[in-house]
């Protein structure tokens, strides 16, 4: 007999993070042409202020609510396997963060030096690099969590 398996708190958090990510990227892609059209700017000129929508990534902070059981009024305890999955996913996220962060840093340096011929880094670039790295970290961590659960939970026979 097959039945549906309720999502674990880690899975819920991972799906929530991915939904927020997709929603923010979709909002951004919609906002750029709207902003360009509304304020009579070019698309590249509108792309920068539209980055303010990245503030919605702060919604990820609500992911922690999946670790609180309102019925029992207690924190949800992860079992040993879930803790291992979380550790693996965190390692994947951290590796992705460093790869992207270093690549972006080198990319920014290369563009500034060889394309724009500037010797100083605009102050807005550094926070953007960190935010981009953290977004990549969270997205890869969430994907790794879902992949680990999918790999070991594909048999829901009672």
């Amino acid at each position: 007999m097959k039945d549906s398996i309720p999502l674990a708190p880690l899975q819920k958090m991972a799906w929530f993070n991915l939904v927020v990510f997709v929603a923010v990227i979709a909002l951004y892609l919609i906002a750029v042409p709207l902003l360009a059209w509304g304020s009579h700017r070019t698309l590249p000129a509108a792309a920068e202020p539209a980055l303010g929508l990245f503030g919605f990534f702060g919604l990820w902070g609500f992911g922690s609510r999946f670790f609180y059981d309102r019925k029992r009024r207690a924190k949800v305890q992860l079992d040993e396997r879930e803790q291992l999955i979380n550790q693996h996913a965190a390692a994947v996220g951290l590796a992705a963060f460093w790869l992207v962060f270093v690549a972006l840093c080198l990319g920014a340096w290369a563009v500034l030096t060889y394309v724009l011929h500037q010797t100083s880094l605009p102050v807005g670039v550094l926070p953007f690099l960190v935010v981009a790295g953290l977004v990549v970290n969270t997205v890869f961590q969430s994907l790794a969590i879902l992949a680990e659960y999918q790999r070991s939970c594909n048999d829901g026979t009672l």
Partner: protein
Amino acid sequence: MALSDTAQLKNRIRRLRFEHGEMTQQELADRVGAARQTIIALEAGKYAPSLMLAFRLAAAFGVKTEDVFQWDANGDSLSR
């Protein structure tokens, strides 16, 4: 690594559940303090539990640990 090195570890959890009044995975999970997904992964041979969880599982069925888990020494690349 407990999430992947499971090829040599066999278990009889599914059979023991049915021998114990067709206990559901959720009931077993509640008894041993684990998630249902963990029981599913164990039964599918995709997760090797800690010693503590192995003892808890055996206690839930009222049997010895070796009656739940069997190690296949022939399949272990490190065995001589």
